[in-house]
């Protein structure tokens, strides 16, 4: 018996020794010459850590990326969080000031539908090749061929090595052309040269088909089959292309190139040929895998990452600030709102009285509190203009014409009773005798949406509707929402990503993503103080008049504000914000003040802020 005990004790000791040996053994391995995923020593890699770089600063962030890493922006998952560090747009746009900051473009001229972009002459890829207009033309061909976007570009020509001329279908695309990270530099001619001719051909065919479709013309069968055959072949080839593996490097025109990628970490080294290189005080960016919000919270507490933007409950923020006094927070609008959207294929929601009643029932601030406590409150209107932009776009005259949707149960009851609804016991019934019963769907992986849905369901049930919550499983959001397989849902409502302007939001509601999932009858005419108007037509007219007739554009916006508020295609709950947390002075210093306009660059690509701050020499290693 005693022997058994000793043997057991020995086993436990041996086990613990092996565990500790295992833990301790991991560290020294990190210091030796490392094998990258391609099996080559790290020193052999382009942009590999030089003596200089080893002494320079390092910025640690959290992100996701596809693994195994292929380095192909057209492949599944693209290049993940490295996108804005590796690829450059023609310019950055600061929404708060309306300022364009030139990046790959030195300047641009607009002449009608022609946009001439003058490229900077000192831009080079990370392998030393110069960046020229050929690369831009090649990229446009590739994205049109692979993504079938943006067909707003009718033609693109290289006038000379550093001048590109775009012909646009509508000048409203100008902003996207200048600021989108995918249009200028994804497909360097010297890397994707083997596929350039095929891409050009597919892009040309795709444009022809698209324009015929838009103009209502019939597409010849042979044209369709030729396109399908060539496009599929090209996509197959491009999907199989992995420049990171084939070339052993990823030549990029951006400030940083991925050099070592594992499942848990992605290392980016500064592009020595980048025009901002001489000003950089940080030469290395490390991404830790964003496996979960909780991981990011813990990494922010410990200082393992320098900045991140996870959704965080209020009490966790308070606790984190106590545990890590270096942790600072800045909150910027995400240029989008989270809304209750309706499926207009269901007869129940075709009744505007019901939608108005719901707008009165909901206590939106309560929803915001439990969902994203930092979000901007929507208050009493549902006009489709983001709360943070309201003052800029909604005229006082218009505001006075709008219904105020204050949380008022009595008002909701009155609207329903006037419309023929009845309440029996605790349940409301429609004029046809059916109970007001529906399911509220919400995408499960979006924690904050689930919290919002829970609160909305609670409030509507308290009022006397029969509402059940249904979770949409991961990966099935598009299928459920686009397939119309829901009654009501929590979704992005108005969103001004890309071009921060009411046009973007209204296009989304009446002629874009939201209208596709809700099928709101946007082409119908609605009664307004300006007469009978269709929001679909107004959106098209706004697009046309945006730069030609500013006065008319403003008037259209007021009309759309009215229609959106009175006919409620969606009910916005709160304006989403991006809370950005950063460790100030732990490893990095030089973060801008909270009120600095540069933070407003975050929506749609927060890494642009870090890139800009590094390139201007503002972010620097903290003084020891």
């Amino acid at each position, binding site marked *: 018996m005693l022997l058994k005990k000793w043997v057991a004790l020995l086993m436990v000791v041996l086990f613990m020794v092996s565990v500790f040996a295992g833990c301790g053994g991991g560290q020294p391995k990190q210091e030796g010459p490392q094998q990258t995923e391609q099996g080559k020593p790290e020193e052999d890699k382009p942009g590999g850590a030089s003596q200089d770089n080893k002494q320079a600063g390092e910025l640690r962030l959290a992100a996701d990326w596809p693994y195994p890493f292929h380095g192909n922006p057209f492949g599944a998952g693209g290049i993940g969080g490295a996108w804005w560090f590796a690829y450059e747009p023609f310019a950055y746009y600061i929404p708060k000031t309306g300022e364009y900051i030139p990046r790959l473009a030195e300047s641009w001229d607009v002449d009608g539908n022609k946009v001439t972009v003058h490229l900077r002459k000192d831009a080079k890829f990370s392998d030393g090749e110069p960046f020229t207009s050929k690369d831009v033309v090649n990229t446009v061909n590739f994205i049109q061929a692979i993504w079938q976007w943006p067909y707003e570009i009718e033609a693109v020509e290289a006038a000379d090595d550093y001048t590109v001329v775009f012909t646009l279908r509508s000048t409203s695309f100008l902003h996207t052309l200048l600021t989108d990270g995918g249009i200028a530099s994804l497909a360097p001619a010297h890397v994707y040269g083997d596929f350039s001719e095929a891409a050009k051909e597919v892009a040309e065919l795709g444009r022809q088909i698209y324009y015929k479709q838009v103009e209502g013309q019939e597409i010849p069968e042979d044209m369709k089959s030729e396109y399908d055959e060539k496009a599929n072949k090209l996509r197959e080839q491009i999907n199989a292309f992995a420049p990171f593996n084939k070339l052993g490097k990823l030549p990029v025109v951006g400030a940083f190139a991925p050099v070592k990628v594992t499942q848990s970490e992605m290392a980016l080294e500064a592009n020595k040929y980048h025009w901002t290189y001489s000003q950089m005080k940080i030469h290395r960016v490390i991404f830790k895998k964003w496996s*979960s*919000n*909780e991981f990011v*919270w*813990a990494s922010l507490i410990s200082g393992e990452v320098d900045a991140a933007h996870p959704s*965080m*409950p209020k*009490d*966790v923020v*308070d*606790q*984190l600030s106590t545990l890590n006094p270096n942790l600072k927070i800045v909150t910027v609008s995400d240029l989008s709102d989270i809304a209750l959207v309706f499926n207009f294929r269901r007869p129940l929601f075709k009744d505007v009285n019901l939608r108005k009643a719901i707008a009165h029932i909901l206590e939106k601030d*309560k929803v915001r*509190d*439990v969902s994203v*406590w930092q979000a901007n409150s929507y208050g009493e209107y549902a006009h489709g203009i983001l709360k943070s932009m309201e003052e800029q776009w909604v005229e006082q005259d218009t505001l006075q014409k709008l219904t105020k949707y204050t949380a008022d149960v009595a008002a909701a009851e009155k609207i329903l009773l006037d419309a023929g609804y009845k309440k029996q016991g605790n349940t409301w019934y429609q004029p046809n005798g059916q109970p007001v019963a529906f399911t509220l*769907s919400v995408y*499960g992986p979006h*924690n904050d949406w*689930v*919290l919002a849905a*829970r*609160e909305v369901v*609670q409030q509507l049930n*308290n009022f006397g509707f029969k509402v*059940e*919550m*249904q*979770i*949409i*499983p*991961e*990966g*099935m959001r598009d299928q*459920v929402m686009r397939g119309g*397989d829901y009654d009501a849902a929590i979704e992005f409502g108005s969103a001004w990503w890309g071009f921060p302007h009411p046009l973007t939001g209204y296009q989304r509601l009446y002629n874009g993503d939201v209208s596709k999932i809700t099928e709101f009858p946007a082409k119908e005419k609605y009664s307004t103080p300006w007469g009978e108007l269709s929001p679909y037509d107004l959106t098209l007219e706004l697009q046309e008049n945006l730069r030609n007739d500013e006065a008319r554009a403003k008037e259209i916006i007021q009309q759309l504000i009215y229609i959106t508020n009175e006919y409620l295609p969606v009910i916005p709950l709160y304006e989403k914000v991006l809370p950005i947390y950063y460790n100030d002075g732990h490893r990095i210093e030089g973060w801008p003040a909270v009120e600095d306009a540069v933070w407003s660059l975050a929506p749609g690509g927060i890494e642009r802020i870090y890139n800009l701050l590094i390139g201007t020499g503002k972010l620097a290693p903290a003084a020891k």
Partner: protein
Amino acid sequence: MTKESLTNFYHDYIHPLFRNKKSLIGLIILLMYILMATVGASVVPLNMNSNFAERYQKPSLKHPFGTDYFGVDIFQQIVHGSRAVISLTLLASFLAVLIGTIVGVARGYLEGIAGKIIDVIIMVFLVIPSFPALLILSAIFMDKDLNVLQIALLVAIWLWAPLAKQISAQVLSIKTRDFIEASKILNMPLRYILFNDIVKLLIPYIFINFVMQIKGAMEFSVGLMFLGLAKFDPTHWGIMLNYALYQAGALYTTQGFHYLFFVILNIVLLIYGGILLSQGIEEIFNPRVRGNE
């Protein structure tokens, strides 16, 4: 059933449960939760209205378990959630054990091709990754309004295989014993050998497995709710735990300690009650264990 046989049944099976400390405590705990699930909801009213200003209130007379991230009373939710936990989770565990036992005993007893086929079926269910399979099931059943039994069956499908494998191993060992050989020589029917000779010996083992399945079934049922397969119930303890950990970040703030603690306490207590009862049963009915007392 005569009065005498009832009395005998009481003296042989029920009375010993009250005399054994472990089984008595286990019974009390389980009875408490069954009462909670059956009559609790009518005694304790549920108010799910959120009150953000009152979130994370410490336990008090007003809120015996405190309030959660929404400012809702945790005790009320535990009481109302117990119904879903007891019905769905126990039913799923029961079905998993039932399937596992039948298949396991059959595999252990049967030889030749039949045994091998059952073995393959068990292995297939052992190696199928449950989450992708659930994703597929969710796509298939998303529109269907599944009842508790159907959902419990969906959960049980992914839980029975390990038990079947273990039971088949036990049966393989038991079936070589002398008394089985004797039953065979006496030409006793297969049903008798399987369920009187073999399964009886496995009852404590099966019961403890049933108890241990509760945790797995709870996790699965939460998974099903998040996959949209089961009706979303915010008072389900698994959902409460999910909210506490992943939505409200209760682990990262000292304020939220009681939120996690009381949910976990109830889950642990329910499972522990089952474990105590199964240990008590084993002590009472297994002569070998009784001999060691």
